[in-house]
């Protein structure tokens, strides 16, 4: 076997390992929307479908921090959003119809509203190991018509190539969540 073939084989193997460690993201962006007009946004309270009762507010906090890093958007505080929901007598746990999104957008003076679902958040047993694993779904609705213009589902866990080869602890839940959120938002910005 030639040296070139061995090198190529190793590269392919490494590529496969790295691909296995990257976050798994599926996203949808509407092509016909001009995102530049979305300047001020709200983040709706996240829906928690995981077993950790504190997962939604924790992921919400990281999501807000990640949004803050993108200077393109001005994000309003959760208290302001909840105040708007109260004024419109909307339940924070309810799924909003497009006309309710439009009304909330007017109430809050925002161009877009982010929504989030925390599907998995916690320890997962994989190949005998326990690793932190998260699955989130985020979406953005514009408030002129209430339609969804971006959606991303992301799954990530605390494994890494290094850990698989040499052992070691799982990445923290915070780091896994942050990485997943950053990957999801990368498909938007």
């Amino acid at each position, binding site marked *: 076997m030639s040296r070139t073939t061995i090198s190529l084989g190793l590269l392919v193997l490494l590529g496969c390992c790295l691909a296995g460690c990257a976050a798994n993201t599926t996203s949808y962006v509407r092509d016909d929307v001009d995102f530049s007009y979305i300047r001020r946004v709200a983040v709706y309270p996240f829906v928690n479908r995981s077993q950790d009762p504190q997962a939604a507010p924790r992921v919400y906090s990281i999501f807000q921090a990640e949004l803050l890093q993108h200077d393109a958007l001005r994000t309003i505080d959760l208290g302001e959003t909840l*105040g708007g929901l109260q004024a419109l007598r909307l339940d924070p746990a309810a799924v909003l119809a497009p006309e309710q999104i439009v009304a909330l957008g007017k109430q809050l003076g925002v161009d877009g509203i982010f929504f989030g679902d925390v599907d998995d958040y916690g320890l997962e047993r994989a190949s005998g190991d326990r690793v932190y694993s998260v699955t989130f779904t985020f979406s953005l609705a514009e408030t002129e018509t209430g339609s969804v213009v971006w959606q991303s589902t992301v799954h990530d866990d605390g494994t890494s190539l290094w850990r698989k080869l040499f052992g070691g602890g799982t990445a923290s839940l915070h780091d896994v969540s942050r990485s997943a959120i950053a990957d999801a938002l990368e498909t938007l910005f």
Partner: protein
Amino acid sequence: MTRRPGMRDLSTGLALALLVSLVAPAAAGRLVAPSPGEGRAGALVFLDSWTETVLPLPVAELRLDAERQLEVALQLSGRTVVMTDGLMRLAGVRRVRSAAALSPRFLADLRDLLGIDELVIVQLIVEPQRLLMLARSLDTAQGLVWQLWQAEEPVGTLLLGDDLDAGRAALLDALTRALRSVSEGGRVAAPDPERPRALLLPATPIGCSLQEGLLATHVLLARAAGDGRAAYVDPAYAAAVLLDAGLDPRRLDGEARALLSRTFDAQVVARPILMAYGSGPLATPRAIGNDPDERIGPRSLVSSFWLALQDVDLRDGTLVNGADLYVQHQGRTGWFGQVDRTSLLTRLQDATRTLWHDYRTSLEDI
């Protein structure tokens, strides 16, 4: 931490005893006569027992001991002191139920009726293995923080044993050591009026206890005030302004923002959020099924803190700055068998320092 039978009853009893001891005027009043022109300090002692901690000592007695020692410590630092029972003579006018919300009206009463210009608040948190002291002094005119102290003292495991006298002695010894910092700190001058005022709300705990929230707020406030760039309004005072108006400090809606802006002439309020504190994986609720040997304390080998700090613009409710930090500290056994026993308070201070640095850097980038 496992739940023990009757623990809830005990906690309720402790809370009641504390409340009674706070509001009942002492038989022998120790109110110091006012001296014209002399700055006086009032002092309040609050005692919190950590969640589900068994404390086999009379709470009122312990609080009295703490008060006596605090009085000496404050007098040694050159203050003329009015102790809690003297302050509680005002209780007929206004009661103080918690150091987490100091009503502006109460501070005004201290200033106007007792001539007190400085209020020293000491919060003691007693755990089976350690005593935590959080103390701060603030001016009664504007609620600005003047000085902060914090101490963590190990008390061994005597409190859980049968020997109450030994446990009490260990606790008092720890208390003396903790309060020494108050007497050594001395009085400080009021903040420079030229310095801008800043607002920091009490930390919102998510999945953490109120006491942990108090601890995080205090340490963060110490870091912020120590920065020297601004004079900080006491978080409990800022929160009380909202609570007195029937508003929730954790929920900054338009009304709450307008009130803060109007009262403190501020444009921005910083809001800390505490999402993890202590040891153990985040996915496991701390109180359920944790091995008692892994209980949080100076002997813990693994600790994690998750803190966020966000600046909210009081004019339009937008987030203008923020930092988010998760830090895990793993103590290791060295080559010669020594175990890293860095205290939880020290670790929290380290985490807060990093958070504050990130926050300031982010602010300067704007």
